[in-house]
């Protein structure tokens, strides 16, 4: 998993978002090596916060890993922002990388026509058969860079290069919830029905966001890895019904750590 191209990374930068957040920026592009440093800092910060040894982080209220940076939000009445910024930079300089600390999921996807309105066009544009596209998607391992855009929406890298394709020139008004979608070098699942311009190539019965899972309403987290497993319609319908009834166990979708 580890990709060592960090030597060409930009210098570390500490950027203010007003007086309530700092962004520690490792670079300006999408790059697994940069993301490994983001996760390294996130891990070091979590350790420092949970140890309670350093008071510098006591006013921190939220920590958001992105492709290339970590944004740390704080309560300005409980935290000395300048001091927190210095402590974050100190931590970022000493923190290592962490690229495969996340969970490994195998998530079922049905690629039937009505779930995958852009699959045929994608195959045609790439000179591939439909089956070849599905094979490429299910053989690859995707990395979750960050959750954002909407609650539970995972931005995933790892799309086979041959499948890279631009967004639709005219976005759809309503993308069905749980659609598997690709755009550029990214892959995602829409957690909710929403407008969107990504290409839809399948649908999973697994909810990406479950508010009642209080510890982790978002199924995926930054640092997780995901493989797609093709399923047929009967199994899709069965799992969708189970999910609706609240009896689809998330743990059944986890692969043992280290298993590819």
């Amino acid at each position: 998993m580890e990709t060592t191209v960090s030597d060409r990374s930009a210098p570390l930068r500490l950027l203010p978002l007003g007086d309530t957040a700092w962004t520690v920026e490792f670079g300006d592009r999408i790059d697994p090596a940069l993301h490994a440093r983001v996760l390294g800092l996130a891990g070091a910060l979590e350790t420092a916060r949970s140890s309670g040894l350093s008071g510098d982080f006591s006013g921190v209220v939220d920590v958001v890993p992105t492709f290339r940076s970590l944004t740390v939000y704080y309560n300005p009445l409980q935290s000395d922002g300048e001091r927190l910024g210095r402590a974050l930079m100190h931590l970022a300089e000493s923190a290592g990388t962490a690229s495969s600390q996340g969970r490994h999921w195998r998530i079922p996807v049905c690629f039937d026509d009505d779930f995958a309105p852009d699959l045929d066009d994608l195959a045609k544009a790439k000179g591939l058969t439909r089956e070849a596209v599905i094979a490429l998607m299910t053989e690859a391992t995707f990395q979750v860079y960050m959750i954002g855009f909407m609650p539970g929406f995972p931005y995933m890298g790892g799309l086979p290069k041959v499948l890279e394709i631009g967004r639709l020139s005219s976005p759809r008004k309503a993308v069905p919830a749980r659609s598997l979608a690709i755009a550029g070098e990214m892959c995602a699942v829409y957690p909710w029905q929403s407008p969107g311009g990504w290409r839809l190539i399948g649908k999973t019965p697994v909810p990406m966001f479950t508010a009642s899972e209080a510890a982790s309403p978002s199924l995926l987290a930054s640092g997780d890895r995901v493989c797609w497993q093709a399923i047929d319609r009967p199994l899709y319908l069965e799992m969708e019904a189970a999910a609706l009834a609240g009896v689809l166990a998330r743990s059944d979708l986890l692969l043992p750590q280290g298993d590819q």
Partner: protein
Amino acid sequence: MQGMIEVIDGGLGNSIQDAGRFGYRHMGITVSGCLDPMLARCANALVGNSPDCAGIEIRGAGPTLEVTQGRVRLALAGEIGATLRRGSGELLVVAAWNSVTLDPSDVLEISYLPGGTAFLAVAGGIDSPRQLGSRSTYQRAMIGGINGKPIVTGNVLPCSSQLRREAREFKATPWRHGDGPIRVVLGPQQGHFKPESVEQFLGSDYQVSTQIDRMGVRLDGAPLQHISAQAADIVSDGVTPGVIQVPGNGQPIILLADCQTVGGYPKIATVISADLPRLAQLQPGQSLRFCAVNAAQARQALLERETQWNWWAYGITFDLPDAVINKDLTAGWPCTVG
């Protein structure tokens, strides 16, 4: 006994909000919370609540509420008022910045708010279910509030009830937000803009457009120029309420409490926390200006705001209705304050 409020008319643009939902932004869940936390604090203080109690944020046609059970104290903060129809048929005008106590079958009809934000606090706070640590309504994820939605006709809002009649009603002067330019800290991506555009951003007037909601406010003004076409996009990174992002068209968008957690437009500046509540009061057509401050000035502004708040809260006084004043008070107050 618990107090119970039934929503007779949901109005429009009203939602249950508290001080916000923290600790979930890495899952794409924004903070939400009342757009004007100072008004929420004021209204809560007038009914004896802690500042973070859940109440109703009003952003349009105010709701009409009937107490169906218990004795419930309420207070409004903001440029708004209400009419109270007692169960006896008596009609009373209820002004903001005054608490009022409703008995069962009393109906409070809250007026229309032409723009900006007001807040209704309920003694003890609205006791709707807490979801992910907060009662704040966040429609996008359908969490908080009642079933994750704004207030609608027919909602039933549980709250506290007074055990015995509290004769005093509390009042205060209206909270005054600071005026002058909205203070910002430049960045994080001011380098994506031509230096003359940064100057222009800080030196010219912007008009509030009609595109304004809990997610953000779009402004109209002379377009700001990025240093290149590529500089109008960044690889998405973290944003927060108060961030001013500028897409390719050069028109700034200020993000508010329900904004997304990450964004791909460069951020020219971020409004400081002391001035964030002022954004809740922006109305279409209004013009505004920005000025840049440093971290020390932002901190100073916040501490001054807190001092102002302490003085405001210190100025809360109370009235005794005539009926009480005429009684023999030597035995002490009719009831202790909750």
